[in-house]
């Protein structure tokens, strides 16, 4: 056990923040989603 009783690899829920709470988090989420969808569509089109 490490980190005051937290099992290694366990993420404490209170440390997780919603990216939509910040503007930059929102913009980055949008850009990541764009990239993912672009790759999927490109693959689907076989281009």
């Amino acid at each position, binding site marked *: 056990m490490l980190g005051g009783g937290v099992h290694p690899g366990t993420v404490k829920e209170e440390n997780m923040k919603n990216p*939509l709470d910040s503007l930059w988090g929102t913009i980055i989420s949008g850009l990541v989603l764009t990239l993912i969808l672009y790759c999927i569509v490109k693959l689907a089109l076989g281009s």
Partner: protein
Amino acid sequence: MDWGAFIHYGLVRWLHILAGVMWIGLLYYFNFVQVAALKAAQADNTAAGISRHVAPRALLFFRWAAVVTWLAGATILSNHLFEAFFFQQKVYVPIGVGAWLGTIMLINVWALIWPNQKKILGLVQATDEEKNKARRTAFLASRTNTALSIPMLFFMIASGGVFRTAFFGT
């Protein structure tokens, strides 16, 4: 002159873009300006002006611009709407993705943002607890739409002509 094509691909497309600029422009106003402005205004007790005079007007144009944008977009696609939404032809896949994102955003506006904003602005009865919950729901729905607007606009741009060739090579 082909008046049908002029109206369909010219005027309706123009309307789609005009209404879309108003919709997404106001969405960005809410997210980039009003959220932070309200927080600052609450600190010096001047938030009432924004809540009473600015937000209701902005929301009026925002929600109806969303409807006009969607209807104009559906009109442009017309008999290809089904093919686009269900990705039945390769050529309609990029616009289909954009159309799905726009549709999800429209549903967010009318099913989540507007009903919750009505509670926040006092247009419908709500307890303080309901108002707090409504504030969080409307905020997250609005932020979700801001995030979705980024790929939505990309696929709208990347769906036709030289842009589709540049992005997808087809």
